[in-house]
């Protein structure tokens, strides 16, 4: 017994210190090779495996917003090209500040997968889920429908994958339905109302009666609410606000009641093919040739795009609306992007293409600045980020609601286009200060950083 006791090693103070140092070194070993290896738990598809990082582009390739979706996809492909150091670099030459080096993201080559949202929330969610689970994407981007964006944003929050929204204009995306993992560069209906109303007052006066036709889903309701709020503040009356199903096609049954309603302004809260069809049919029914209450009848399309203007042809001339961006802008960022996109595809980009391109670059830059793909750190890098040179002047990603704040364009269908693409005339560049609102106004809760 005694021998055994003698044979047992006694721990000296020096042994304990040595063992502690050894254990500490062993425990910290991964830190030498991987930044924040212990701090960053697996979230979504983090950590990224292999030499490439995959992004998911989930756009409407069919349905009422398919034109926008096709242009968004073109922009995403161009952004990936520029991120990987190919092509002329586009806005990577003009963005300030810029952490990207033109060698992918954090040295990993950028790959992408695409999906079709079909402009339906359930199809969009299924497509996004497949991208996250099967294709291991680190970020999902896309639109073009606020219903789709809100649905996919919710899924991304659950699955710990960052969602860089494409074209989505409803207040709810960064309002009551905002999410920590969702970011929107595009403007919203509140900003449309704030920017458009003063121009409408100047052009059409304070004594007007409006009739709204509204796409019956979150964006339409949001758009109708904002325009009603701002025009009623001017003194306009709202005669009626009629909801129309998304993708209705034939709007004649909704337009005929407008004819003798006593309204002298028709507000079309429609987008994409719906707007092209409803505007074309409104013009066919002679609304633009009418005189009501001693005034010329007017049509307003609060959210405009060049693609829609192209579809509506002559009918768009002289009609007012707002837009996030237009290819005719003269700043260096816009011109670099237009030149790059035009050289690639033979025509200028739409506002949908612009916002999607910018969102992809912003995500990549945030990863580069954060030094990691770890979503909570990338989110923090985006929150409150101030940048310039991306086509909208000085811009800020507001931390409280993940909404970008920048100048907004009020446009009018160009009566005398100088080229086949010169369809929208910029009437006013409304400064950010005029369209800004407190984050608390639209409510919502961003939720946690970690999934």
């Amino acid at each position, binding site marked *: 017994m005694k021998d055994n006791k003698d044979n047992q090693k006694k721990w000296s103070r020096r042994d304990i210190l040595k063992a502690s140092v050894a254990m500490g070194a062993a425990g910290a070993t991964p830190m030498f090779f991987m930044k924040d290896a212990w701090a960053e738990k697996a979230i979504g598809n983090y950590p990224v495996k292999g030499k490439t990082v995959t992004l998911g582009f989930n756009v409407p390739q069919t349905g009422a917003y398919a034109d926008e979706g096709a242009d968004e996809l073109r922009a995403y492909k161009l952004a990936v090209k520029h991120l990987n150091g190919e092509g002329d670099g586009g806005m990577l030459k003009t963005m300030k500040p810029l952490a990207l080096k033109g060698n992918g993201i954090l040295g990993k080559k950028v790959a992408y997968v695409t999906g079709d949202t079909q402009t339906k929330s359930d199809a969009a969610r299924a497509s996004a889920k497949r991208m996250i689970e099967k294709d291991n994407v680190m970020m999902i981007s896309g639109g073009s429908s606020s219903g789709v964006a809100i649905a996919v944003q919710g899924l991304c929050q659950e699955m710990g994958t960052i969602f860089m929204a494409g074209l989505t204009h409803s207040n709810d995306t960064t309002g009551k339905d905002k999410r920590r993992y969702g970011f929107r560069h595009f403007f919203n209906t509140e900003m449309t109302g704030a920017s458009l109303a003063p121009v409408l007052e100047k052009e059409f006066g304070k004594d007007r009666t409006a009739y709204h036709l509204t796409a019956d889903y979150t964006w339409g309701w949001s758009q109708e609410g904002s325009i009603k709020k701002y025009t009623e503040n001017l003194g306009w009356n709202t005669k009626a606000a009629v909801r129309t199903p998304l993708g209705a096609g034939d709007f004649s049954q909704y337009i*005929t009641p407008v004819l003798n309603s006593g309204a002298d302004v028709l507000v079309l809260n429609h987008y994409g093919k719906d707007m092209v069809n409803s505007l074309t049919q409104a013009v066919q029914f002679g609304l633009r040739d009418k005189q009501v209450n001693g005034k010329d009848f007017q049509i307003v399309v609060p959210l405009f795009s060049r693609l829609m203007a192209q579809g509506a042809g002559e009918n768009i001339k002289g009609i007012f609306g707002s837009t996030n961006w237009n290819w005719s802008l003269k700043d260096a960022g816009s011109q670099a992007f237009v030149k790059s996109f035009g050289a690639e595809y033979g025509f200028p980009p739409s506002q949908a293409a612009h916002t999607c391109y910018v969102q992809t670059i912003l995500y990549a830059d945030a990863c580069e600045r954060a030094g990691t793909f770890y979503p909570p750190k990338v989110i923090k890098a985006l929150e409150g980020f101030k940048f310039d040179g991306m086509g909208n002047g000085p811009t800020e990603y507001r931390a409280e609601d993940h909404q970008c704040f920048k100048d907004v364009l009020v446009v009018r269908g160009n009566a005398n286009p100088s080229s086949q*693409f010169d369809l929208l005339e910029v009437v006013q560049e409304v400064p950010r200060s005029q369209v800004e609102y407190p984050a608390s106004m639209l409510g919502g809760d961003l939720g946690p950083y970690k999934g």
Partner: protein
Amino acid sequence: MDDILIQILNGLDKGGAYALIALGLTLTFGTLGVVNFAHGALFMLGAFCAVTTNKILTISVKVRDESITFFEAYKEQPYLEIWWGDTGAAIIDYSVPISILVTIPIMLAIGVAMERGLIQRFYKREHSDQILVTFGLAIVIQELIKAYFGANPIPTGAPDVVSGSAAIGAFFGLSENLVYPWWRLIYLAFAAVIIGAVFAFLRLTTYGMVVRAGMADRDTVGLLGINIGRRFTTVFGLAAVVTGLAGAMYVPILPPDYHMGMDFLVLSFVVVVVGGMGSLEGAVAAGFLLGLLQSFASMNEVKAILPGIDQIIIYLVAVVILLVRPRGLMGREGVMDD
């Protein structure tokens, strides 16, 4: 008063389209006893006959757009305009009316091929088999169109001279506010002419009389030595032509896409069921009735009392008719009673 007149016009205009589509459907059902779920696809094919005609007439050469300086952009200039100037442009402008000439033989050929190649093999099969095979055929046609023309609607306008609205109120000495789009009025007149022609063919010709006799009693007509099968093939072709023309002329009203057939399929069956399976008069009457009801249900005064009624009125009427008179408004006794 103006509101009522406008809604009547809108109802008749919608009803004209519904009646034309349902007429073709009930023609095949009444003659062949086949429940054709590919009928919507025939409507869509007719629309794409108009689109194809327009595409052929606008085959273009690409010319550099000098107004764009910072990248290479091109404009498309149709050969017809290059060769014949304003005359060429006028031909392109009238592509939809011109497409009628193309649609008739193409749809006749498609109808005959469909009947001879597929439908005739299912005459004596269960209705459920007929539904499955024709629905499958509709999906195949739809996917073929999607593969070739893409998924997006393709706008194809009416001729410029009829792209605006007609001051019908002023013309009839009524209110000047009463205006209606020219093309929709033309469509209504076109539907009336086609419906009249089909009825005249069936009522005033010997051929039509034999077909009607065959619809009533196929076996007896066969015993008299008449090749009723061949006549029924012609009727199927005729139904395809009527439906195809309805689609071709509808293009300026609604830009067609690959899915438009499915959108109209349910509607056309509802019209046929309300009108009475196998009844031509019933299909036409139900088409106009449902068009009018849908139009009046869209009036704000109606929706203030019954919100959302415009979306469900057609189906609501179908439910009521089936409960009260399962045979439909003018349905023949014994047809689909089992």
